[in-house]
């Protein structure tokens, strides 16, 4: 069997998950390039929620979600902490009948897979799970106890270690400065340390950087950035005293971070036509903390007043801004492009932690065997060319 040489650009969740799944094939020869450290870019700012269900990914893609979740549980079983799992459970609030319907389906799927899940309409019980919220204007809540959130940086580092164990090379602090394209075929890359590498496939796993990466291959990658703005709150009294679950409302979500609460605007509430929400920016200019717009505080203030009054008097510990890379239909960009040998594994749009394991599993198969999958066809780059 001939070797297939694959160069991966980007060491976030996308690149490391793909690198790991490729490294399971004996004839894969893999080099991953990361210009900084593994999992230090937008992956490090991900909330890392992988819930058994929520509205971040339609129930249609439930197997994607489950594969991601169970991949990380497996990691945790192999080495505790290697996926940074905090098993807090998830509470998804039904604010309308359509949301309620989605929740009921999600709960059914959860139970079918053998996990605990219930749709709760007893408001006293909901208050018991999360005392801070207002239950007056809600219909009910879906509650799953076996899930929670993970740590994207830990996962990326664990995948990077695993792929290295399988013989792949990981080059950190190494930036790809040129993608070599000969006669509309990507044949290799040149890196900041002055070396050249020949590949059969070059894969863009650079998420929010994909616009810039694509340009090096002469490809226009239709990625938009939506802002993921988040706050760390110190709840009144500074101690939660109970397990704060991952909390999902249509407009925002929250999870615990120690005794603090992390709260973020949900990505489906972003409006691509609003220049405050969406645009094309330079992710290299993202500050490590801060950078949120003033409107965000007011937005959250209103949301907290209406939905989680127990958090209104929280202290604002810190904030951060990240960019989600999204095509206009909010689905990932995977697979072949008009440049032969140049593959995309990007556009996860803030769902990389959930989607990358299953997407990488399928993409690795495509690269190594040429065989596509229904998921890849659904999330193919070609869909946007029509």
């Amino acid at each position, binding site marked *: 069997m001939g070797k297939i040489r694959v160069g991966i650009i980007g060491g976030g969740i996308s690149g490391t998950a793909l690198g790991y799944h490729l490294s399971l094939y004996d004839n894969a020869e893999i080099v991953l390039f990361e210009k900084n450290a593994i999992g230090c870019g937008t992956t490090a700012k991900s909330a890392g929620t992988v819930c058994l269900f929520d509205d971040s990914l339609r129930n249609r893609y439930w197997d994607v979600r489950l594969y991601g979740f169970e991949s990380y549980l497996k990691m945790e079983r192999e080495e505790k902490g290697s996926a940074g799992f905090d098993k807090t459970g998830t509470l998804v609030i039904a604010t309308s009948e359509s949301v309620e319907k989605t929740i009921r389906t999600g709960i059914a799927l959860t139970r079918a897979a053998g996990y605990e899940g219930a749709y709760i309409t007893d408001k006293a019980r909901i208050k018991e799970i999360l005392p801070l919220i207002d239950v007056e204007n809600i219909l009910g809540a879906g509650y799953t106890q076996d899930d929670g959130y993970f740590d994207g940086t830990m996962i990326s580092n664990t995948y990077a270690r695993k792929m290295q164990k399988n013989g792949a090379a990981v080059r950190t*602090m190494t930036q790809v400065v040129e993608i070599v394209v000969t006669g509309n075929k990507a044949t290799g890359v040149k890196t900041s340390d002055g070396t050249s590498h020949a590949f059969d496939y070059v894969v863009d796993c650079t998420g929010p950087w994909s616009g810039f990466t694509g340009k090096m291959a002469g490809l226009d990658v239709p990625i938009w950035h939506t802002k993921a703005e988040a706050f760390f709150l*110190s709840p009144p009294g500074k101690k939660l005293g109970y397990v704060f679950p991952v909390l999902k409302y249509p407009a925002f979500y929250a999870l615990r971070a120690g005794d603090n609460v992390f709260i973020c605007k949900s990505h489906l509430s972003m409006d691509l036509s609003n220049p405050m929400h969406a645009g094309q920016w330079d992710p290299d*200019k*993202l*500050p*490590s*903390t*801060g*950078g949120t717009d*003033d409107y965000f*505080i*007011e937005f*959250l*203030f209103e949301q*907290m007043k209406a939905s989680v009054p127990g958090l*209104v*008097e*929280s*202290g*604002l*510990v810190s904030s951060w801004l990240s960019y989600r890379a999204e095509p206009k239909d909010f689905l990932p960009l995977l697979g072949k492009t008009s440049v032969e040998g140049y593959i995309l594994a990007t556009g996860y749009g803030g769902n990389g932690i959930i989607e990358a394991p299953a997407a990488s599993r399928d993409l690795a198969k495509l690269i190594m065997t040429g065989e596509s999958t229904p998921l890849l066809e659904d999330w193919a780059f070609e869909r946007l060319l029509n």
Partner: protein
Amino acid sequence: MNIAVCIKQVPVSNNVSVDPVTHVLVRDSAENMLNPADANALEEAVSLKERYGGKVVAFTMGPPAADKALRTAAAMGADELVLITDRVFAGADTLATAKALAESVRRCGAFDLILTGSESSDGATGQVGPMVAECLTLPHLTEVRSVEALEAGCLRGVKKFKNSGARVSVRLPAVLTLSYGCNDPRLPTFSSQIAAKKKTVIVHTNEDLALPEDAVGLSGSPTEVVDSFEPEKKKNAAFLSGSSAEIAEKILTLIQEKKGTGKKGADNG
């Protein structure tokens, strides 16, 4: 008890590099924040106000965008905000900065205490506090770790001094610089942050301060920065080798060297 607090807006990240050709500083992020030790000064001021009454006025000097630090101060409990800003103040070293700050404080009435952080996280000279004190001919204490009591026109507190501590008393009014981490600064909340945004900022230009031109900004600075360059730093760690005992010895030597030159009492080892 009226308290002035002098604060500074600093970059969130100290990750700066130097353009090898132009020698201009390149910052990896334009994001700014309130200087961490100044948050400790504000906390001390606001808690003293809560105990003894009075008001807290926050002062900062910088470009108009430095009002962000003042808004944070307001969200933490500062009652009035003063922004000292004028093109003629640009390029000021510590001396010219202190003169402008002191003049602005002087024009805002009588204060019992003037607090500031013991140093900024970017320049870290620790000079501006004592300089403001001298400009206002007030006594000062640097590196204050705790304020214990106010009695008979004096403030009693504990300060750090050469790896030990000292309990001292200072007659008020006085200038104090507070050590980073000496207290747990209160956090802005949603409502205090939103209210802070609506607060009026008093602006002092040099028209208001009427300082002579040769006392402010670059022309009022006896020193100037003539160059900047990358330090000779290793990108990667230098590895210590040897037996475990030898490595332990090396680690302790490094720590003791860094802790200072074997001061009395400093070596608990």
